[in-house]
């Protein structure tokens, strides 16, 4: 029941935050000095044409009216039309979302599967060679510009060694469209050559995206495990003569991971933000590339649509993380 109450409480918080995000994007897109209508109309338009277009687009009405209209249309799932592709923005984003989710999920899995064990080992073998080597990894992971890392990987693995494709999601035909995730679709249709090709295309962007997240995870897992190792209950378990692997991999890890779960929420933010830049480097056909292309084309509606989406996804993930945190940590349920 407490869990349900928590979920409801967080959901109630979700609506005002999202509304606030809409206010911010609305202000950014409408109140700034630049005139979006003039931009849409183009440089050759006469003042009369600009005014006519302004009326057509509804930009001549009072701002609060425009805002209400903006929110009402958003609730109906209408984000307006892209000024460039002339398609509804929701349609464009939906079509590109699977590519971004696939990339982000693979990067997330890589960073969790590699990062957490490394963090644990780093804490267990404190001040060993491995620990020092990992400290270099974590320090550089948080300092490296992901677009630069991506380009360096491209030079080495794609251009010089030729082990992976340079960019894109797949050459040739995509697998039969079941879920939109190429890896999953290829596996479901037993098309292993496509699966391999999709995986090779994923390798570099996923590695680029995963690196900062991995660094964060190693760092937090190490600190968490070290913290728990000093606690009284671990001392007690050791005094009881419990085998060390049991203490480490069951009791210590469970305690230490509660803080790591919260980190995964933050991690998702890092990944989502990183996806914009990483996708641009690797021409990955996701919403990040869409955002970057919209920047180049000054496609206001599309950029605001992307911002709202990215913000909404991020808020929802944080909501889920809060609930997951409660599930993992028994203390949260009783307090």
């Amino acid at each position, binding site marked *: 029941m407490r869990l349900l109450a928590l979920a409801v409480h967080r959901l109630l918080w979700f609506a005002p935050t999202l509304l606030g995000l809409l206010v911010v994007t609305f202000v950014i897109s409408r109140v700034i000095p630049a005139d979006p209508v003039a931009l849409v109309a183009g440089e050759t338009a006469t003042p009369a044409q600009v005014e006519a277009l302004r009326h057509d687009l509804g930009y001549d009405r009072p701002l609060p009216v425009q805002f209400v209209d903006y929110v009402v249309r958003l609730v109906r799932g209408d984000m307006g039309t892209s000024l460039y592709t002339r398609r509804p923005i929701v349609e464009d984003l939906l079509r590109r979302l699977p590519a971004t989710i696939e990339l982000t999920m693979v990067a997330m899995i890589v960073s969790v599967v590699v990062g957490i064990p490394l963090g644990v080992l780093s804490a267990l073998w404190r001040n060993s060679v491995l620990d020092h080597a990992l400290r270099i990894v974590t320090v550089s992971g*948080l300092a490296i510009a992901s677009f630069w890392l991506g380009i360096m990987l491209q*030079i080495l693995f794609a251009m010089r060694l030729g082990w992976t494709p340079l960019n894109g999601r797949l050459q040739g035909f995509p697998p039969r469209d079941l879920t939109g995730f190429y890896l999953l679709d290829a596996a479901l249709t037993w098309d292993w050559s496509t699966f391999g090709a999709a995986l090779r295309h994923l390798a570099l962007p996923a590695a680029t995206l995963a690196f900062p997240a991995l660094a964060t995870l190693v760092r937090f897992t190490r600190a968490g495990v070290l913290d728990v190792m000093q606690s009284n209950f671990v001392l007690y378990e050791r005094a009881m003569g419990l085998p060390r692997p049991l203490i480490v991999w069951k009791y210590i890890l469970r305690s230490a991971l509660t803080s790591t779960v919260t980190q995964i929420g933050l991690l998702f*933010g890092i990944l989502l933000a990183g996806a914009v830049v990483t996708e641009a480097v690797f021409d990955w056909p996701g919403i990040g590339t869409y955002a970057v292309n919209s920047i180049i084309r000054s496609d206001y509606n599309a950029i605001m649509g992307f911002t709202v989406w990215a913000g909404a996804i991020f808020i929802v993930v944080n909501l889920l993380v809060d609930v997951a945190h409660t599930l993992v940590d028994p203390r949260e349920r009783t307090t």
Partner: protein
Amino acid sequence: MNALWFVLTRLARDRSALIGLVLIALLVVCAVLAPVLSTHPDDVFELHPSERLRAPSGSHWLGTDRMGSDMYSRLLFGARITILIGVIAVGASLAIGVPIGLVAGYHHGWVSDSLMRVSDIFLAVPQVVLAIAIAQTLGPSLPNVILALSVTYWPWFARVVYAETRALQKEIFVESTAALGASAWRLTLLHVLPNIASPIIVRASIGMGFTILTAAALGFLGLGPPPPTPEWGRTIAESREFLPDAWWYATAPGLAIFLTVMGFNLLGDGLRDVLDPRLRRSRAVSDG
């Protein structure tokens, strides 16, 4: 002065903080002495088409770019832009975030609640996403990049200051100063603020690294200061069509960003250990 000396000597004993300090000092030296240190100081604005895309050599230590300009000289002048963006953006974020955090932390009521809700909204979206939206609408230029970064970074300071102020209100010395009749202004500015300076300084150092990284990403996406400004992120974007042959073109500015951000991160970690005795003790236990 004594406090500063104490912090500096402590920092010097911490190896990674020392590396951070050295890296930042190097960056500042490069920026200040750029005209003296550079081998081709005029190359920031001059074109030498016959010299384009030369590999590193005795006359061009880091090679030349697509315009035939000396990479090494452009990198030095780029350091100025990096520092400018970082210092102004973090300074503005401090100027907005710290007062808001203090007010929201000191007063209890709907004003505090709404101030913190507003900062929550900004924290709810990855910084680079909002910064992209703002920089794009305003148009690519140096002031707009700084504005976009400041508008999106202040909530981090507001959050830290708010939490610390709230925690400090439970302290006896704050309560007794208030009981002695100190005004709210006197109490916050003379008693609360000095006591929460440490977390603010740590956040500012890490914020410098973070802001510089985001600024480079904006530059890479074409939202930074327009050419011929020798901004590092944009330089990497320019290099892409000449890869892999002109490897130095992409490598040098990326390394410059890497070392700069690493410097601020290491210094931030070091400052955290030196300035926060609670953390130092826990670290002394956990790090053996």
